[in-house]
C-alpha cells in the first residue's frame, strides 16, 4: 500500500517538470494568439524546426552542447551553495582564450593544439569564475553581484580585443571591420561527426563530462565537501571543512565549465571568435540546470529540450512572423513553473512528515 503510494509519488514528482513545460506552452499559446499568430501552426513549426529532419535534430544537439556545459557548471556551483550568474562572461573569455591560443600556435599539430585550446578556454573561464570566488571567500562579497559584473567586463574586453588586437586582418584589409577574429587553424577544430550537419565532437565531450560531474559530486571527497558546504555551511565548518575555500572552488569549477562551453563553440561551430558567441547560453544554462533538478545527468535531457526550443524558435519566427525572443519568454515561464512546482512538492513532503 505505502509502496504503491511511494511509486505514484515518485513518478508524479518526476513528471512535474513536463507538466511545467506544458503549462508554459499553454500560456505561450495565448501570447501567440495575442500577437495574432495561430498557436498550432507556430508550435508545429517549432517542433518541425527542432526535430523535423536529421539536420534539424543535429542542430538541436549542437545548441544543447553549450547549454549542457554551462548547466554542469551551474550544478556544481548551486550544489556548493553559491550562485553563478556569470556564465555569459565566462563563455566569452573561454572563447577568447581558446581562440588566442589556437591563433598563437598555428604550427602545432591538432593532437596538441586542440587540447591546449580547450584548456585555455577552461582556465580563462575558471579565472573569470574564480575572481568572484576569491572575493566571496576573502571578503564575503556577494557572488551574484560580482558574477553579473564580470559579465559586463568580459563583454567589454571582447569588444576591445575583437575590434583591436585580435581583429581578423582580412577585415582590416577589406575595410569592413567586422568584430571577429581570424579563423583558427583547421587542425584545432572539433571533429564534425555527421557532415554536412554541424554536430561535432564537443557534444560527446559534454555528455562524458556530465557523467564525470556526477561521479565528482557523489563519489569523490571534494564533491562530498562541496555538497556538505552547500547544504549546511555551519555543520561543514564545525566538521573542519574550510567553507570559503570550497565555495570559491565551486565558483571556479562553474566558470571552468562555462569557459569550456565558449571554447567548444569557437572550435566546434564558428571556428573563430565572434562578437556574441555567448548567445544567451550563460543564462539559458542556468535554466537547463534548474530544469534538470541540479543533477548533472538530469541536465542532459534538459539541455536537449532547451536546445530544441532555441532551434525551433527560428523556424517558428519564419512560419508565423513572431519574434524569436518569444522563446526566451517561454523559457522563463518554464523555469517559473518548474521551480515553483518543486517548492510545492517539497512543502507537501514536509507536511507529510511526522514530528512526534
Amino acid at each position, binding site marked *: 500500500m505505502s509502496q504503491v503510494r511511494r511509486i505514484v509519488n515518485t513518478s508524479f514528482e518526476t513528471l512535474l517538470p513536463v507538466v511545467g513545460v506544458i503549462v508554459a506552452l499553454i500560456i505561450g499559446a495565448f501570447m501567440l494568439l495575442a500577437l495574432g499568430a495561430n498557436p498550432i501552426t507556430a508550435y508545429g513549426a517549432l517542433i518541425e524546426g527542432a526535430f523535423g529532419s536529421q539536420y534539424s535534430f543535429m542542430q538541436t544537439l549542437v545548441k544543447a552542447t553549450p547549454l549542457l556545459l554551462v548547466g554542469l557548471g551551474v550544478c556544481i556551483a548551486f550544489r556548493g551553495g553559491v550562485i553563478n550568474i556569470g556564465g555569459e562572461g565566462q563563455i566569452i573569455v573561454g572563447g577568447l582564450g581558446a581562440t588566442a591560443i589556437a591563433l598563437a600556435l598555428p604550427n602545432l599539430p591538432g593532437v596538441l593544439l586542440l587540447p591546449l585550446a580547450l584548456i585555455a578556454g577552461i582556465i580563462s573561464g575558471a579565472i573569470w569564475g574564480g575572481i568572484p570566488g576569491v572575493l566571496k571567500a576573502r571578503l564575503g562579497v556577494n557572488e551574484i553581484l560580482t558574477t553579473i559584473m564580470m559579465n559586463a567586463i568580459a563583454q567589454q574586453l571582447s569588444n576591445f580585443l575583437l575590434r583591436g588586437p585580435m581583429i581578423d586582418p582580412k577585415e582590416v584589409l577589406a575595410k569592413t571591420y567586422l568584430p571577429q577574429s581570424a579563423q583558427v587553424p583547421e587542425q584545432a577544430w572539433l571533429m564534425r561527426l555527421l557532415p554536412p550537419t554541424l554536430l561535432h565532437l564537443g557534444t560527446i565531450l559534454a555528455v562524458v563530462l556530465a557523467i564525470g560531474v556526477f561521479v565528482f559530486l557523489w563519489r569523490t571527497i571534494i564533491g562530498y565537501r562541496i555538497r556538505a558546504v552547500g547544504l549546511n555551511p555551519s555543520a*561543514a565548518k564545525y*566538521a*573542519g571543512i574550510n567553507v570559503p575555500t570550497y565555495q570559491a572552488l565551486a565558483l571556479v569549477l562553474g566558470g571552468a565549465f562555462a569557459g569550456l562551453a565558449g571554447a567548444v563553440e569557437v572550435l566546434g561551430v564558428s571556428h573563430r571568435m565572434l562578437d556574441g558567441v555567448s548567445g544567451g547560453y550563460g543564462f539559458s544554462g542556468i535554466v537547463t540546470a534548474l530544469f534538470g533538478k541540479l543533477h548533472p545527468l538530469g541536465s542532459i535531457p534538459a539541455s536537449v529540450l532547451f536546445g530544441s526550443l532555441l532551434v525551433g524558435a527560428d523556424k517558428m519566427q519564419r512560419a508565423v512572423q513572431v519574434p524569436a525572443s518569444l522563446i526566451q519568454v517561454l523559457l522563463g515561464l518554464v523555469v517559473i513553473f518548474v521551480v515553483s512546482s518543486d517548492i510545492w512538492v517539497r512543502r507537501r513532503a514536509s507536511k507529510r512528515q511526522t514530528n512526534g
Partner: protein
Amino acid sequence: MAHGSKLMALNSQRMSILLPTGQPRIESMRMINITKRFPGVLANDKVNFDVKAGEIHALLGENGAGKSTLMRQLGGLYRPDGGEIHLDGKPVQFKSPADSIQRGIGMIHQHFMLVPTLTVAENVALGLPSSRGLQLDLDKVSQKIEKLAQRYGLKIHPDAYVWQLSVGEQQRVEIMKALYRGAALLALDEPTAVLTPQEVDDLFKVLRGMAADGHALIFISHKLHEIIDISHRVTVMRDSKVVATHPTAGSTKTQLAREMVGREVILQYDKTPYKPGAAMLRIEDLVVMGDRGQKAVHDVSLIVREGEIFGIAGVSGNGQRELAEALTGLRPVQTGRVVVAGQELTHAKPAQRIAAGQSAIPEERMREGVVKEFSVSENLILQDHGHEPYSRNIFLNFDAIAKESKRLIDEFRVKTPSAETPIKNLSGGNIQKVIMAREINRKPRVLICAQPTRGVDIGASEYIHQRLLEQRSAGTATLLISEDLDELLALSDRIAVMFDGKIMSIIDRDKATVERLGLLMAGVKA
C-alpha cells in the same frame, strides 16, 4: 476582535462562568478515539485525552510517541483522520489554527513565534485588528497587558524589545499572547526545556495561578519530576497509543518512566571510581567576545583531566555557548590560551582541533551537528571522510562507509530504516546518537559536549549518559556543558558554575547540591 470578544462575553455571561480575562471557561475538552495517519506511520492510534477547567493535565511520552501530533490536531494544524474533539460536551472541528484560537485554545510551542525587533506589546498586538481601525492602539494593548501581567504574575514589561529578553521572559510573552487572545485552554509543549530551576519555579507559579482561575492546562514534558510537581493528572503515551491515564498524586518517577519507556529505566548510574589522570584540556584566562561585542567569556581558567567529566552549569546566555564555540574554533579567542593534549590550539581551526584528538557535540544539533539532507552514513563521515577507511585517493570508499555505518548504527542502537535514510527523518534522540557515534568512534582524548540530551527522549538520554560514562572510564577528558542540573549531578566529577561569563566557583561533585548550584547560577557567591 475587541468588539467581537465583548459580544462573546455578553453572550457567555448568560451561559457560563467567566475567566479573569473576560473569556468563558472551557469546562471540559475531550479528544475521543483520535486517529491520525501519515503515509507509512500511524501517529495517533485511537487516542483518548481530556482536560477540565482548573486542571493541569500532563501529557508524558518520548519523542515520536505522538504527543505533538495530538496537540497539533487540537491546535487546528492537522485534522484527525478519525475520532472527535468535544468542547463542553459538543463536537467541534478545527479547520485552521485561527479556528482553534477563536474557540479559546492557546498553544505555546517549543520554538517561540516572536518578532525580535518588535516590543512585547507590538508582538502581542501583531495580527489582531486595532480598536482604532487603521491607527494603532498600542497604548490600550499595553494597559491590558499590564493588567493581565499583574493578575497572573507574569513579570513582563510591554515596552521592552523582545531581543532584549531572556528565554524565560520570551516564554512569558508567548503565554501573554495566548491569554490576550482569550485562551481558556492552554497547551504548553515542553515549556521548561529552556528554563533555569528558578525560572521553572516562576512558570509553575503562573501555571498554578491560571489553573486556580479556571483555565484548563495541558503540560507536555518528559521531565518526570516536573510532572509530579505540577500536574493533577497524567496521561502517558507510547508508540502512538495512550498507555495510562491516572491521577499524579501517588505516582513515582520510576513508575512513570516505566510507563513511558515500556521497561525499567535506570535513574541513577553506576560510576567507576574517580581516578583523574593527566591534564588533557587546559584553559587559561580565556576571554571571548559575544555577538554584541561584550566580553561573553571573562577570564575563564580550568583544567579537565583524563578520565574526568567536568561539568559546566549555568543559566543559558552566561557565556557557555561562546566558551564552547571558542573551544571548537568557531569563535575567535581574544586573549588567553587553550591547550589540548599538550598542543597549543588557542587560535586553531576546527580541523586542527579534530586532528589533535578533540571531539565535539554541538549544542545546535541540527545546525552544526548534521547536514540534514545527507543520509545517516554521509553524516557519520562528516569529519573523517578524507582518510582511510572512508576514502582512498580522491574517491570515497562506499563499501567501507557502508560497513562502518552499519556497525555504528548497531552499536549505538540508532533507530533508522537504513543507513541511506536522510537524517532529517530521524527523531532528535536518534540524530544525537548518530553524532555521538561519530564523535566517540574517533576515540577522542578530549570531548566538548554541549547540551547532549536537550530535547532528547529519556531512553536515548539514558543511553547517551552511559556512553559518556564509558568514555570517562576509557580515559577521555570530557567538558560537559549543560543546563540540566540532574544530568550534571549524575555524570560530573567536578562542576563549575558560570555566571556573566565568569566562573563563580568549582565544586567537587560530593559537595554539590541543587540549592548550592542554583544560588551560584543566580550570581550569589556562597
